[in-house]
């Protein structure tokens, strides 16, 4: 088992594997996006209170879910890299940050575009919105820290510690709608016994969530590949790989 992990963790094998995975997940992501967007825009019904503006949730909710998930991946990979010194984990943590920041930005921006017609305001200092904004700053702080420290190992270590401290914010975001009385609505999908969302809206929403997940996996691997090449540029396997390609 350990040998398998070590093999996977060798940059050369990881690079080869990630090339394959990007193809599979990228393809799945495209199909799911097409199905989800069509389902969301054409086949799902308008809401009885919100009318057509409810269609924003098909991009807003998956963005918000992913903004939390990517943070957990970033902090988790960073911690594994910190403890066991696995280079690939550091690379994955660093590659996740810009994607997480993008998802957080999208969640805030689409939420704002929904809030204007529904609540009458682009922004309110609601617990959910404020904690999500803090998440955006955490991502931006992580990215700034990475670009400020030149030594990649030091940068990864400092980043992992920052990400670990910031992880307190994740349960705060998740439970903010229950702990405080917020303008933002409570959870509607994760109530497992009876989700209070109609099946015709749930299906496109879950399709979009899956599409976002596949998107994240392929996008993070693409970034990780770049980082690995740049980090390992003097190693033999990179030389062989590029030598073969340029021939």
């Amino acid at each position, binding site marked *: 088992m350990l040998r398998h992990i070590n093999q996977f963790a060798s940059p050369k094998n990881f690079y080869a594997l990630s090339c394959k995975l990007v193809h599979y997940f990228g393809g799945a992501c495209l199909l799911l996006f097409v199905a989800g*967007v069509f389902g969301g*825009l*054409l086949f799902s019904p*308008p809401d009885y209170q919100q*009318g*057509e*503006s409810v*269609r*924003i949730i098909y*991009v*807003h909710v998956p*963005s918000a879910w992913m903004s939390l998930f990517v943070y957990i991946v970033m902090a988790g990979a960073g911690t594994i890299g910190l403890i066991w010194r696995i280079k690939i984990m550091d690379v994955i943590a660093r590659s996740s940050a*810009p*994607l997480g920041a*993008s998802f957080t*930005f*999208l969640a805030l*921006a*689409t939420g704002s*575009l*929904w809030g*204007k*017609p529904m609540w009458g305001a682009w922004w309110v200092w609601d617990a959910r919105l404020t904690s999500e904004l803090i998440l955006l700053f955490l991502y931006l702080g992580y990215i700034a820290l990475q670009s400020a420290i030149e030594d990649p190992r030091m940068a990864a270590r400092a980043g992992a510690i920052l990400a670990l401290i910031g992880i307190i914010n994740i349960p705060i975001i998740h439970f903010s709608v229950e702990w405080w009385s917020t303008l933002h609505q409570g959870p509607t999908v994760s109530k497992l016994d009876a989700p209070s969302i109609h099946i015709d809206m749930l299906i496109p929403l879950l399709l979009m969530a899956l599409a976002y997940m596949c*998107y994240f996996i392929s*996008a993070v691997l*693409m*970034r990780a*590949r*770049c980082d690995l*090449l*740049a980090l390992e*540029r003097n190693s033999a396997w*990179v*030389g062989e790989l*590029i*030598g073969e*390609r*340029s021939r």
Partner: protein
Amino acid sequence: MLPEIQEFFHMGGYAFYVWSSYGLCFIVLVLNIIIPLCREKVIIRSIAIQVHRKQQK
């Protein structure tokens, strides 16, 4: 234009909000694919030059 299509783009009066949400997501997600692709090209080119120099020596 067909009235149904017009109605679809009108989004019950929420056209601006709905279409800018989808447009924004599209732009950000596509950018996050294009940027690493361009970066990879630049890195591979610079490594190729490095490898080429080594071979000449």
